[in-house]
């Protein structure tokens, strides 16, 4: 069963609706004790990364999240929280990945926000992308991106610059796009996450 970190960073109706559609059960995590009830964790998030990090710090859950050995999936700003730093709010993040979250420079990347469906190059054998074809389109809405990295990028996307559409490191996963809004491919990704096994 999936636990959703409930730290007040945006509306999670769309996420829970998507989990309902694919038949996955879930509950909300408000306290550290509640983390034990679930075998995998989603960190949602929309809006401002610096503000989201402050809310997460206020929740008191940060040290417990960093110690997790269960599969964890950060979505959008929830993914950016996994990095070490974000230019949005000049903020320190969870530092679970040695990566930075940067702003798309207007003119280089095209229009900002990067909004709409873009195709991603999927890293071979990444369990998050099982049964999802390379170059599949996912729905993105963001002005900040996580830099591309040969080690930690699980799916690469291009928007003027190459960036991380997805990252993975041991039990930690993150996706910049919105699987809950990305049609069948997004629903497949949520199903994949529900069965991922980590050592």
């Amino acid at each position, binding site marked *: 069963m999936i636990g959703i970190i409930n730290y007040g960073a945006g509306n999670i*109706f769309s996420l829970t609706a998507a989990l309902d*559609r694919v038949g996955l059960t879930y509950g909300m995590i408000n306290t550290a004790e509640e983390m034990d009830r679930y075998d995998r964790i989603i960190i949602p998030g929309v809006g401002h990364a610096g503000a989201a990090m402050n809310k997460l710090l206020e929740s008191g859950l940060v040290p417990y999240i960093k110690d997790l050995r269960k599969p964890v999936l950060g979505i959008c700003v929830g993914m950016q929280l996994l990095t070490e730093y974000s230019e949005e709010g000049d903020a320190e993040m969870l530092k679970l990945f040695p990566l930075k979250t940067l702003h798309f420079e207007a003119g280089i990347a095209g229009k900002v926000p990067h909004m*709409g469906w873009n195709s991603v190059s999927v890293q071979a054998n990444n369990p998050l992308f099982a049964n999802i074809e390379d170059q599949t389109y996912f729905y993105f*809405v963001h002005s900040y991106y996580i830099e591309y990295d040969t080690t930690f990028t699980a799916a690469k996307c291009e928007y003027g610059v190459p960036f991380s559409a997805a990252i993975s490191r041991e039990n930690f996963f993150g996706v910049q796009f919105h699987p809950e809004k990305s049609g069948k491919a997004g629903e497949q990704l949520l199903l994949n996450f529900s069965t991922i096994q980590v050592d």
Partner: protein
Amino acid sequence: MLAKRIIPCLDVKDGRTVKGVNFVDLRDAGDPVELAYEYSQQGADELVFLDITATHEGRKTTIDLVKAVARQVNIPFTIGGGINEISDADILLNAGADKISINSAAVRNPGLINQMAAAFGAQFVVVAVDTRSIEGQDFVHLSGGRIKTEINTLDWILEAQERGAGEVLLTSMDHDGTKNGFDNKFLKAVNDRIHIPLIASGGAGNQQHFVDVFQQANVDAALAASVFHYGEILIPDLKQTLRHNGIVVR
């Protein structure tokens, strides 16, 4: 590459889909949730619901509709109409809407754009603009195109962008309902000046019109209603035509 988006627009009143020809003479075109689901299955990239419900009781129906769409549809959607303050937007976002669209309310109170962008992020705020050309000049129109303002359309779009709009939905009232094609020239003039996504609206009658608007104006998305609702254009066929013309689509 980022794909060009095809967006069916559903005009909704009291929980039912309607489409006005030139924004009058409403005709019933079905259940919005069913229609939305059908479009998502066909490959629509996004949906826009324009709510023209006037009554307070009707607004509750709209919120239920937004929830039903969010539950059943796996692509993003925008809801517009009747949003005059932050609390209106907040209710719709919590009901599962991905973006809200503001039109006349933003013209009457431009600070609303700043407030919405600050509260929810620029990506939630679509500013819809209805424009009409009068003796070679483009003017913003309000209330579904019925009321002319003295505001220059491009100036207003640039101001909306400056205030924090994340996207512009530009409807040419001269083209809307005509099925003679989008207002490509004006759309290009606007698109060349802004750095946020632009959705073209008004005038779609056949598949070539979509090819033209993407090739000539390079807009990010094209929106239409009746050609989709009455099955005159099927989205999979349209996408194939666009692909054949070298336009990147999903």
